[in-house]
């Protein structure tokens, strides 16, 4: 095993020569048998879980179709086995949903996935992908009569995008400044030499990442951004860049807002000081095959409507994650959390045309990432999972659906006990004729009352990462209400 000093020398020299990093990968893999990372893929807008993971047994499908209309003018998908048509609505052209068989049978139910996520069907069948069913923000175990009869067990601000995004990531509404990803890292940060890179976003400021000690670092999909030209000059002068850095990173007026802004500038420069020379190139590893990411086939997904191969911004973000993981040895990182995301999931309208391309991007990006991690020898070290502020309503508003609550999510990685659905899949039903669904899992409008909480979801991931039970109880105060079910067992 190479010493850290030798690794650093390797990293610098190799990056300077632009060679592949296979030697370093091997060395890192040896020393990094201990390395673990969580990667959160946030789906902004509220992904419609009803069309993502489907129940295809007759009773479920009949209830689903009753609410969602038909494949032509409504928002329902076609049943398993339906041939894709050459023309017509997009749902007609996509063909039938893709059957999956979970390892644990669920009482005579059968299941399938949206036709545009075939690669997730493959990952599921290879047991690298698990589905967590009907998970959402809950104060504790809640049954329908609790919800209907009292407001005590109703989380506040349900249905509000920004607040529910915040609650999923942090347990608190908008204005909260620390999330469970960062809190996990607070206890793990001792494993990291360059602690600045413990919690990294490639998708904007996300409350999931900061903790008490843990600060979030923002990376661009293209990597760390260096101020000035690559030769270290601004307007032809290194002195100008030096002065510029000083002006940006310090304050003279010394008041709070100036200090806040200067602190971010300071971190920006400091990060490049460390990463700039060692960050592997776009084609220096299995994550990229072209120097221009916008035209790299590895980063392209097939649009389900036009069949064109298009740039996938989510895959590009994951490319940056992979490149950062490649230098974990040089940086001396034992544990990391990463945040990436994709917007556009708020399908109130034109859902047929909007949802399929988004799912195609998600599926392609996850497969691309799994392939890349495999080639990097990080198969078992990285667990990737989705989150979204809520699911959606079963009922249609004509060409879309409105905000829901419980949702289904994906967890992927070598350590994941894939090929199964975790949690009781909700029961679908019709209504009583007065707008109230008969199923105990369905609220009015067909929002899912979650059966499992975001806290349990987080705790399961945290436990895998190495966070102790006692810490989890502090980070997720409602976790104890779930008793022995605190760990959902998917990883």
């Amino acid at each position, binding site marked *: 095993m190479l010493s850290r000093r030798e690794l650093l020398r390797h990293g610098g020299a190799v990056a300077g020569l632009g060679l592949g990093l296979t030697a370093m990968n091997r060395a890192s893999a040896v020393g990094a048998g201990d390395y673990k990372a969580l990667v959160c893929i946030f789906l902004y807008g509220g992904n419609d879980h009803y069309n993502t993971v489907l129940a295809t047994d007759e009773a479920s499908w009949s209830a689903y179709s009753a609410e969602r209309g038909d494949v032509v003018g*409504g928002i329902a998908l076609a049943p398993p086995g339906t041939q894709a048509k050459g023309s017509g609505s997009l749902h007609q052209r996509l063909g039938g949903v893709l059957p999956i068989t979970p390892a644990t049978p669920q009482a005579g139910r059968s299941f399938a996935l949206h036709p545009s996520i075939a690669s997730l069907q493959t990952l599921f069948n290879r047991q690298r992908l698990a589905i967590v069913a009907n998970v959402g923000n809950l104060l504790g175990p809640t049954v329908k009569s609790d919800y209907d009869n009292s407001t005590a067990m109703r989380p506040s601000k349900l249905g509000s995008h920004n607040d529910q995004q915040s609650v999923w990531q942090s347990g608190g509404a908008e204005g909260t400044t620390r999330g469970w990803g960062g809190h996990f890292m607070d206890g793990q940060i001792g494993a990291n030499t360059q602690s600045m890179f413990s919690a990294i976003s490639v998708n904007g400021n996300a409350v999931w990442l900061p903790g008490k000690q843990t600060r*979030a670092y923002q990376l661009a999909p293209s990597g760390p951004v260096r101020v000035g030209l690559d030769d270290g000059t601004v*307007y032809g002068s290194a002195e100008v860049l030096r002065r*510029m850095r000083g002006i940006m990173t310090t304050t003279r007026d010394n008041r709070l807002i100036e200090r*806040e802004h200067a602190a971010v500038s300071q971190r920006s420069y400091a990060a490049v000081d460390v990463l700039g020379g060692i960050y592997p190139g776009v084609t220096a590893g299995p994550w990229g095959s072209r120097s221009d990411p916008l035209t790299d086939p590895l980063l392209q997904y097939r649009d389900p409507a036009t069949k064109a191969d298009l740039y996938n911004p989510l895959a590009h973000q994951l490319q940056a994650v992979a490149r950062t993981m490649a230098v974990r040895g040089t940086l001396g990182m034992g544990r990391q959390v990463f945040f990436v995301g994709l917007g556009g999931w708020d399908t109130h309208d034109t859902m047929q045309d909007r949802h399929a391309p988004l799912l195609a991007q998600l599926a392609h990006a996850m497969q691309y990432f799994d392939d890349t991690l495999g080639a990097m020898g990080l198969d078992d070290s990285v667990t990737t999972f989705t989150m979204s502020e809520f699911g959606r309503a079963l009922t249609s508003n004509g060409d879309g659906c409105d905000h829901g609550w419980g949702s289904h999510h994906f967890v992927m990685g070598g350590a994941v006990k894939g090929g199964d659905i975790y949690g009781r899949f909700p029961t679908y039903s019709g209504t009583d004729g007065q707008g109230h669904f008969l199923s105990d899992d369905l609220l009015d409008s067909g929002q899912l009352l979650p059966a499992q909480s975001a806290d349990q979801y987080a705790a399961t991931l945290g436990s895998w990462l190495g966070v102790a039970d006692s810490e989890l109880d502090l980070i997720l105060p409602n976790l104890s209400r779930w008793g022995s079910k605190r760990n959902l067992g998917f990883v």
Partner: protein
Amino acid sequence: MTPAALPRTRALATVALLGLLTACGGQNPESDSAALSQSDTRRSALAATGATRTEAFRLLNQASFGANASTLSRIQSVGTAKWIDEQLAMPAQDVHRTRWLAADAAIKKGDPKATAGNNEVISSIYERALFADDQLRQRVKLALSEIFVISLIEVSGTQAEMAASYYDMLGRNAFGNFRTLLQDVTMHPAMGKYLSHLRNQPADPVTGRQPDQNFAREVMQLFSIGLVQLNPDGTAKLSGGLPIPTYDQDDVAGIASTFTGFSWYGPDTSKPRFFGGDPAYADPNRYGTPMQGYPQYHAITPKVFLGTQVPAQKVADPDASVKIAVDTLFKHANVGPFIGRQLIQRLVTSDPSPAYVQRVANKFANNGNGVRGDMKAVLRAVLNDKEARRAGVASGERYGKVREPILRVTAWLRAFNATSDSGKVLIAPTSDAATELNQTPLSSPSVFNFYRPGYIPAGGEADAARMTLPEMQITNETSIAGYANYMMGVVQRGIGPRGEDNLGERPDMQPNYTAETALAEDPPALVTQVFDKLLPSSPSATLRNEVLAAVQAHTMPPKRPDDSNALARDNAKARRVQTAILLTLVSPEFIVQK
């Protein structure tokens, strides 16, 4: 543009004179709830004193797209309150849609299938921002577009005409009444498309369809009353220590029924016109005209929400339903503090005192003449308030705001009298964080705007103090470097595509550095000149020395008698000027508005 600026020496003399007078005469009056005539008297008594250059500059940072010689001169002459009154008196002008249609017609002459799109809207927004005399109205349009959000990301391409019309609508309402603003936002087809209540239909028990709740929720959460009950000072009311929600899911569903049956404007309310898609039923003005009600697609069952209801209708009356909904929202006690606090944040300071919010909210509730929702009164309250105007307050530890990137760019362009080579003010989207500004006008990633009013940056002093700093939500290690590099490029070369075909010699918008270039061999004078143009008052000696050292890092070859090194000298001059400007534009002194 307004009359040419005074020559520099005369301007300085005038400023000195005004400075003496204001030193004796005190500051402009703070806003109070007295009748307008009383403050008129007070204002005219102080009018002779005008304002100092610093006071004028600060106001322009709050109420315009950037200070320049002519606006500074005007405010110094008439004072801040009078200038605000002048600005409020200037009438609205609808320009954005007509400009878009003209651009579209010109494009179609070349190719009948081609169309104008998003960039034409962005250009027209910048054109008004940079060159309009009614700077306050333009600035308020931008502020309103960040509250009543629609986005070119979704309302795009040929439908960008609707976004242009929407921006005109915000302009018409900027100095009007909030009730009208809320009504016009509700009925605009761009909003109908963006939040999907265009073509919204009633519940159908057969198919199970429910009305779309998108607009219904956001009109409450974002455009009028917010999520929790508020005190007049903007703080949350508490019950048992917890905030009190303003609405629940039943209210959302109830009010959603109100917003059914609206679709494209036209000469009839036929089915094909409602559903759109048939060119024979597409009125040419539908993108620029409010949606109309189609009774046959409007819910007639009772609609219950927010403690009120639209009673069952024997004959469907969509307009009557919306009237009740908008009236109910307008009258809610939350609106003054909810909208007032955001206007303060957009213009003046990110974390205003509750007392400041209350003074503004009070003016919203009653402008002094018994009128609720008077935007002129609200804007006067925001800008004339002591917390906006007083230097003593502005120097406070927690005062001010991080200027949004769009406003940094316009401040630079106005300060240096930038002109458009093509005359079309071509500025393209600049949304990339790593290489651009992380922001483009009217192009928010979602209805939640680029940043939330309640955003608190994590892990630092603002977090500990629970200070809201919205613009920090788009500020991070990537964006800060992206901004610095982007400005490095545009300060040197200009900004925007190189002409309409992007094949020209240089970017379309060109700043004028003539005066600065003339001072390039006198670095201290150059630095003073640049600071004067970009900052309200002289910064610290430390900043001056830093910028000076950077400028002097570019050595200036001495002039040869035969001028054989003229090019080298010109290059050195240019670099010195660019250096002084760039280093000021990336300084906290410039980025943080006080």
